[in-house]
C-alpha cells in the first residue's frame, strides 16, 4: 500500500530517488552520531557528503552499507523501505562501497581480495583475466598475483575501487577515495566516475577536498555534529563558503612565517643510497639535498615511489652505511638509530598514525613517552615519570586543540584528524631543530589540516629545518619554500616553490629527468 502511494508521488514529481534516507538516528550510548538525517540520492547523480571529522559521515554510510544498524529512521531503495542487515544485503541491492580505511587482506593476493567481495554466484575461474581487463578499461593498474602487503597505499586504494566497481553497483559510496592519488590519478578516477554516472549509477562522494566536490558533484549534503546543516549545489558555491558551512566558522588562511632569511644548513643528506630490505620495496639511489633553518622542503611524488623508505632513512629506522650520509647540525648521524637522532634535536612523524606514529591501545600520555623518552624529559634512569608524561600529553592536547577525553584516552579512540594533530603536535612541542613529517594531513579535515600546516610554518619560522613528504600538491605549494620530487627512489633537485609549476612537478612525478623538466619550464 505504501509502495503504491510512494509510486504515485514519484510519478507526480517525475523523478524518484534511488536511495532515500529518512530521519536516521544512530546512538552509541549517550553519544548521538547521526541526529535525524535525511538524504536523497538520485540515479545519474554525484552527491557529495561533506563535513568535519566526527560529523557523522562515516556512521551514515556504514548504515547505508549494512555495517551499522540505525537506532531510528528508514532507508528506502526505489521507494521501498529496506532492512540492510549486513553488507551482503546492501550489495545485493546495488550499493557498493570504497572504504577510507582499507578493508584489504594483507596476506592475500590482489585477485583474491577482489574475489571476496564478489557475489557468491560469480564464477571465479577467469578472475585473473577479469581483473586485467578491468584495469585496462578503467586505467587502474592492478597486478592480480601480488600480495597486498607488498603494495603502497595508492596501489591498495586502486584495489578498493576496482573491487567495488567489479560488483556493478547502482550506488557507489566513496569514502575519501583520492587521499593517496596523484592529481593525474585523480583525474583518471574522475573520468571513471563520470563514466559511471553516465551509465546511470549514483555516486555518494565523501571528501574533505572541496575542489573535488565542486568538480564532480551536482548536489552536496553538509553534516555538522550529526545533523544536516545544508543541501546545496556545490558548483554554485565557493570552496570557502562550503568550508564555512561545514565547520560553522571560517578557516583562517595560513600565515607565512616571519623569518624569511634562511639560516645555516641544519640537515644535510649526502649521496644517500639504501637497498630496501623488502624484495618489493624501493631502493633509494644517490639522494643529496640540504635544508636550512627556517626553511620547509616539500617532497612530492606518486605513492609507492620510495616515500616510506625515504622517511625511514631520514628517521634512522633504516640506518645508512656511511655516518656522513646524513648530518644534523654538522654531526654525522647516518649510522645512528632513531633515538640518537632525536637526541641531536631531530623529530619524526611517520605516515601511519595508528601503529607507527602512535600505539593504538596506549593512552596519549604513554604515547608521549614513546617519542620523548630519548630526551630525558619524561623518563629518568629507565623509569617513566608519569606526571611529566601526562603533563606533556596535556600540553599537546591543549595547544593543538586535540578533541580527546584527556591524556588517559586511548589513541585508537581518537578520530584520525585528532590523532594526527596529537602525533604532529607531540613532536613540534619538543621544539625540534629538524622535523621530518610524512603525509602530515592525510585523511584529516580542513580545519585540522589548516592547524597542522600553520604549526609546521610556525616551527620553521622559529628557525627549524622542516621536511614535508606529501602527495597533496596544494599542501606543498601552500607551505613549502622549496619542492623536490621523489620518483623510483631518486630525488629531483629541490627548486624554489615560486619557480616551479604543477606541470613541472607532474613531469617529474611521471619520471622525467630534472633536465627535461627544466627545459619544459623554459
Amino acid at each position: 500500500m505504501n509502495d503504491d502511494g510512494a509510486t504515485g508521488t514519484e510519478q507526480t514529481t517525475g523523478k524518484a530517488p534511488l536511495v532515500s534516507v529518512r530521519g536516521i538516528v544512530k546512538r552509541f550510548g549517550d553519544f548521538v552520531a547521526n541526529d535525524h538525517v535525511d538524504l536523497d540520492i538520485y540515479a545519474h547523480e554525484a552527491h557529495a557528503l561533506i563535513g568535519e571529522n566526527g560529523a557523522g559521515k562515516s556512521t551514515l554510510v556504514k548504515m547505508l552499507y549494512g555495517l551499522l544498524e540505525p537506532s531510528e529512521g528508514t532507508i528506502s531503495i526505489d521507494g521501498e523501505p529496506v532492512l540492510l542487515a549486513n553488507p551482503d544485503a546492501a550489495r545485493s541491492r546495488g550499493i557498493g562501497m570504497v572504504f577510507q580505511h582499507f578493508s584489504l587482506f594483507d596476506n592475500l593476493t590482489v585477485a583474491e581480495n577482489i574475489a571476496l567481495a564478489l557475489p557468491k554466484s560469480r564464477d571465479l575461474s577467469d578472475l585473473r583475466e577479469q581483473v586485467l581487463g578491468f584495469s585496462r578499461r578503467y586505467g587502474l593498474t592492478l597486478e592480480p598475483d601480488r600480495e597486498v602487503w607488498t603494495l603502497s597505499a595508492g596501489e591498495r586504494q586502486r584495489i578498493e575501487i576496482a573491487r567495488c566497481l567489479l560488483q556493478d553497483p547502482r550506488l557507489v559510496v566513496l569514502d575519501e577515495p583520492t587521499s593517496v592519488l596523484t592529481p593525474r590519478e585523480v583525474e583518471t578516477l574522475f573520468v571513471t566516475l563520470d563514466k559511471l554516472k553516465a551509465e546511470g549509477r549514483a555516486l555518494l562522494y565523501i571528501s574533505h577536498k572541496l575542489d573535488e566536490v565542486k568538480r564532480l558533484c551536482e548536489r552536496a549534503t553538509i553534516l555538522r555534529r550529526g545533523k544536516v546543516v545544508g543541501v546545496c549545489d556545490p558548483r554554485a558555491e565557493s570552496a570557502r563558503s562550503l568550508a564555512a558551512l561545514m565547520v560553522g566558522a571560517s578557516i583562517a588562511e595560513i600565515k607565512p612565517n616571519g623569518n624569511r632569511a634562511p639560516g645555516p644548513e641544519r640537515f644535510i643528506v649526502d649521496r644517500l643510497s639504501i637497498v630496501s630490505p623488502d624484495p618489493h620495496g624501493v631502493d633509494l639511489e644517490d639522494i643529496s639535498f640540504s635544508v636550512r633553518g627556517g626553511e620547509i622542503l616539500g617532497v612530492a611524488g606518486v605513492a609507492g615511489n620510495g616515500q616510506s623508505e625515504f622517511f625511514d632513512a631520514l628517521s634512522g629506522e633504516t640506518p645508512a652505511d656511511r655516518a656522513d650520509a646524513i648530518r644534523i647540525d654538522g654531526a654525522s648521524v647516518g649510522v645512528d638509530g632513531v633515538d640518537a637522532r632525536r637526541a641531536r634535536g631531530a623529530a619524526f612523524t611517520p605516515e601511519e598514525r595508528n601503529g607507527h606514529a602512535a600505539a593504538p591501545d596506549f593512552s596519549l600520555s604513554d604515547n608521549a613517552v614513546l617519542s620523548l623518552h630519548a630526551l630525558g624529559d619524561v623518563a629518568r634512569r629507565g623509569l617513566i615519570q608519569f606526571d611529566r608524561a601526562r603533563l606533556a600529553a596535556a600540553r599537546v592536547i591543549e595547544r593543538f586543540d586535540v578533541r580527546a577525553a584527556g591524556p588517559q584516552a586511548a589513541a585508537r579512540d581518537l578520530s584520525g584528524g585528532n590523532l594526527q594533530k596529537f602525533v604532529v603536535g607531540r613532536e613540534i612541542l619538543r621544539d625540534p631543530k629538524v622535523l621530518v613529517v610524512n603525509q602530515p594531513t592525510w585523511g584529516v579535515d580542513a580545519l585540522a589540516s589548516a592547524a597542522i600546516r600553520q604549526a609546521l610554518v610556525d616551527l620553521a619560522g622559529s628557525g627549524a629545518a622542516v621536511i614535508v613528504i606529501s602527495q597533496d600538491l596544494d599542501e606543498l605549494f601552500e607551505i613549502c619554500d622549496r619542492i623536490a620530487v621523489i620518483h623510483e627512489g631518486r630525488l629531483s633537485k629541490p627548486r624554489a616553490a615560486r619557480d616551479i609549476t604543477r606541470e613541472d612537478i607532474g613531469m617529474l612525478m611521471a619520471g622525467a629527468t630534472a633536465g627535461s623538466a627544466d627545459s619544459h619550464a623554459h
Partner: protein
Amino acid sequence: MSADMLELVLMTVVTAATPLIIAAIGELVAERSGVLNLGVEGMMIVGASVGFAAAFSSGSTLIGALAGIAAGVVLSSLFALLAIGLAINQVASGLSLTILGVGLSGLMGAPFVGQKREAASRLAIPYLSDIPYVGRLVFGEDMFVYAAIALVAACWWFLNRTRAGLTLRAIGDNHHSAHALGLPVRRVRVLSTLFGGACAGLAGAYLSLAYTPFWSPGMTAGRGWIALALVVFASWKPWRVVLGALLFGGATVLQLHAQAASIGVPGQLLSATPYLATIVALMILSIGARRNAAAPAALGQPFVATR
C-alpha cells in the same frame, strides 16, 4: 638391516606420524581462520578414552573412531563458546580446555584401564599388499593412515581452491576487513574450531584403537602439543604438516631402536630427541622465515562486532 626390516621400520614411522597429521591438520584449519586452540592435547586424550570405551563396548573400531570425533567436537564447542562466543582470551581458554580434557579422560577411562582389544585391522589387498618391500607400506596400512592423507589433500584443496576456503583465510588474516565485507567471521571460526576438535578427537582415538590398542591415562604424552608445533613448523601449509609429522615420527622410532640397541646414551635423553628435534626445526624455520610464511595475522585475536 634387511629390506623387509626397513619396511617394518618405515611402517612404524607412518603409524607414529598419523595421529600428529590428523591433529595438526585440524588445528591448521582452525588457525588459518584466526583461532588458536591450545586445547588440542585435551581434546586428543578425551578422544582416546571415549574412543576406546565406545569401541570396547560395541566391538566396532568404526564406532570407536566416531565416538572419538564426537568427543573432540563436544570439547571444542565448549572452547568455541568461550573464545568465540564470549570473546574470552584464546590462550587461557585453550589451556584450561587441555587441563579439563586430561582430567575428564582419566575419569571416563578409569573402568577401561587394563582392558585390551584387537588393533584396528590393516588393509590387505591380494597381490598388491604382497609386493615385496613396498606392498605393506603402501597397501597394508590401517584405514586411519589413508584417512589422514585424504584429509590433508581435502584441506589443501579446500583452503586453496574453494571460495569458502578463501573466505576462511581472509577471516584469519583480518577479521575487521572480513566483517566490513560482510563475511560471517564468527560462524566460520566456530565451524573451523569444531573441525579442529573433530580431528583432535580422531587423532586421539587412533592412539587407543590402532597405535597401542588399549587405554592408559596420559597416553597422548604431549602429542597434542607436538601437533601445535607442527602447524608452526608447516608455516600453516597442509602438505608440510605431513613432512613434519614424518620427521617427528622418524625421530620417535629411531630413538626406540637406539634404546633397544643400548648405544650407551641414557634412555631419557633418547626419549627426548623427538621433542628436541621439534624445537630445533622450529628455530631453523624461524631464522629463515619470510614475512608471508608467518602466522595468520589475526591469529588468537578475539573478535567483537559492533552493530
